[in-house]
């Protein structure tokens, strides 16, 4: 009988899950030849980075390598000197976002956190997240004053949405606390929660684990995975905690002096001689 012979599958079953999906993945952020000059200083030099849908990617490099500058360029805080930044969100068209204002970039679905925590310190934790809902709501002055049904409904919606996000981040016990009174680790999580409220398709995390103890870092690790699985948000993170980077990311981009010096899976990066040189300095052979 023919049934005894297994038909040759076009889809190799042995391929690990993430590699298999990688092939059909489409890029959601493409940065081509990005250059950023500050006067005579070239902070970013011809950087090419592509982030795929559903990916957790990391951007690493020594201090002053231009990682945060890169974030500032894509989120519109800086206007890049040269190069192109394209986004292609789910179901959306490919779009060039160079030189757009930060608030417009956020509305397009790129949301970020900051290296030095930038929370709204005089507002409560919940309100911080509610501010994050700003781009996805549209009540105007009249609606705010007269509280018509549409405005009330929207307000209730964002309160519920914000609370749900806080629950996911495990911050619900701080709901009515002022953001400034939160412990450091919780403030970092709140920044992520706030960024998630803007409904991004790509979350840019700038050193989310900075200042966290190992237990908090472990929790962050789980949370980032959870965000990717449940919310279907891709993540690009800048991080110095190599344990976190290696365990989380599928693709690592290494920059030094604004140039890309390596890209690959954690395993490849770990064995990349150029990367090792950048991090540890040159080995002197006897």
């Amino acid at each position, binding site marked *: 009988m023919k049934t005894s012979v297994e038909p040759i599958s076009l889809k190799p079953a042995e391929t690990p899950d993430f590699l298999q999906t990688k092939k059909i993945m489409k890029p959601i952020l493409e940065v081509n030849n990005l250059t950023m000059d500050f006067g005579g200083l070239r902070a970013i030099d011809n950087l090419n980075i592509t982030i795929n849908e559903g990916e957790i990617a990391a951007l690493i490099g020594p201090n002053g390598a231009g990682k945060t500058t890169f974030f500032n360029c894509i989120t519109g805080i800086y206007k890049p000197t040269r190069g192109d930044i394209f986004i292609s969100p789910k179901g959306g068209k490919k779009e060039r976002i160079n030189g757009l204002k930060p608030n417009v970039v956020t509305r397009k679905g790129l949301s*970020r956190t*900051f290296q030095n925590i930038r929370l*709204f*310190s005089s507002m409560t934790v919940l309100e911080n997240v509610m*501010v994050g809902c700003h*781009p996805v709501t549209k*009540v105007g002055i009249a609606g*705010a004053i007269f509280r018509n049904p549409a405005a009330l409904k929207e307000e209730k919606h964002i309160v519920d949405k914000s609370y*749900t996000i806080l*629950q996911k981040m495990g911050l619900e016990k701080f709901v009515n606390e002022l953001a400034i009174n939160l412990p450091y680790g919780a403030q970092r999580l709140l920044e992520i929660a706030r960024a998630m409220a803007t409904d991004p398709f790509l979350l840019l995390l700038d050193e989310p684990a900075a200042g966290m103890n190992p237990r908090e870092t472990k929790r962050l690790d789980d949370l980032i995975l959870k965000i990717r699985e449940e919310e279907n948000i891709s993540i690009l993170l800048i991080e110095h905690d190599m344990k976190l980077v290696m365990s989380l990311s599928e693709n690592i981009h290494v920059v030094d002096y604004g140039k890309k010096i390596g890209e690959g899976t954690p395993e490849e990066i770990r064995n990349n001689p150029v990367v090792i040189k950048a991090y540890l300095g040159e080995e002197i052979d006897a």
Partner: protein
Amino acid sequence: MTVLDEIKKSVFASVWFMFLTFPIMVIKVNTVTKVINWRWMNMAYVGIGAFIFSALWRYAIRKKEMGASKEKKEGLSFIQKILQVRQFSIPALAVLAVFTLLFPHVFSMYQTNIMISALVYVMLGLGLNIVIGLAGLLDLGYVAFFAVGAYAYALLNLHFGLGFWIVLPLGGILSAIFGIILGYPVLRLRGDYLAIVTLGFGEIIRLVLENWNEFSYGPSGIANIPKPALFGLDLSLSAKTVYLYYIIVALVIFTIFVINRLTDSRIGRAWIALKDDEIACQAMGIDKAKTKLRAFALGATWAGMGGVVFAAKTAFVNPASFTIWESVIILCTVVLGGMGSIVGVISGALLLILLPEYLRDFGQFRMITFGAVLVLMMVFRPGGMIENVRRAYKFETGGDA
């Protein structure tokens, strides 16, 4: 040990003051008899006075530092409790309402007039509170919008005979437009720079009013501005004042209502986000320019309406009523009362306007007290008399809200 240190420092301060004031307090040259009077007693007074002040100051600072950690745990202060606990707030509101309603009938017309101007300042304070307390834009030219409102009523009434009720919204809208005109060029500025530009704007408006004789009748101003009439009835002057009093009370309540709702809305949160962190605010998708312009326009609206009431109350406007000093007073009401806090700003305005009126005998000490009180406030209660407390939301614990 530390107490001894503090005393030592106080002694040092007193010696320093004795030295500083030596030439003016101790030496007195009588130019006629060519004799020098050595008034050593004055030196002793200065020394003792400086020592006591310094010691008191140090004591208060120490107490504040010790109390700072305690107060956090205690939670709400006494005033906040009254405001937030229903049991207290409803009777307090009822008493306040009865007092407000009966005020013009119990007290004289002079008192009512003072109250009207105090309430105008409450309105101004609440308007400026949007700009400074919520959006964090230091506006030192706020009085310009007040002037726009007042002159709008004076001029529109003079040329076109428009009545109070028509000009009231018009004055508000006109001021809002001026707010946007001011706001547009200063979108990029913040902090001190913004303060300087707005200060200039306030002066420009005043100088234009003062010098453009054909338009505003210059320094001599415009007189005979009518008070609002009640359904065409011919009221006596005192009845008109009482009527105006109720109008301004209603306007203040309206202002409180609107600002309260705005504070607790998407727009209010955007303002506070802008004040707390401009970069993060933009990263949350908030349009900085739009938010700032909204704050300037909405803040100016109340000043414009307050200006219309002011013109109706005094029946006369001239540029001298709109000096930089008025801006400073309004700013003080906001800072003293508590930035962002509605109750704080109201009590700040009432205190700052009513106290000097009732303490006219001490008029010459007005400025010095003003300054001293502000400095003390900044040191001991930087949040103002009644600090702003953010709204608390309730959720069922455990359930999926």
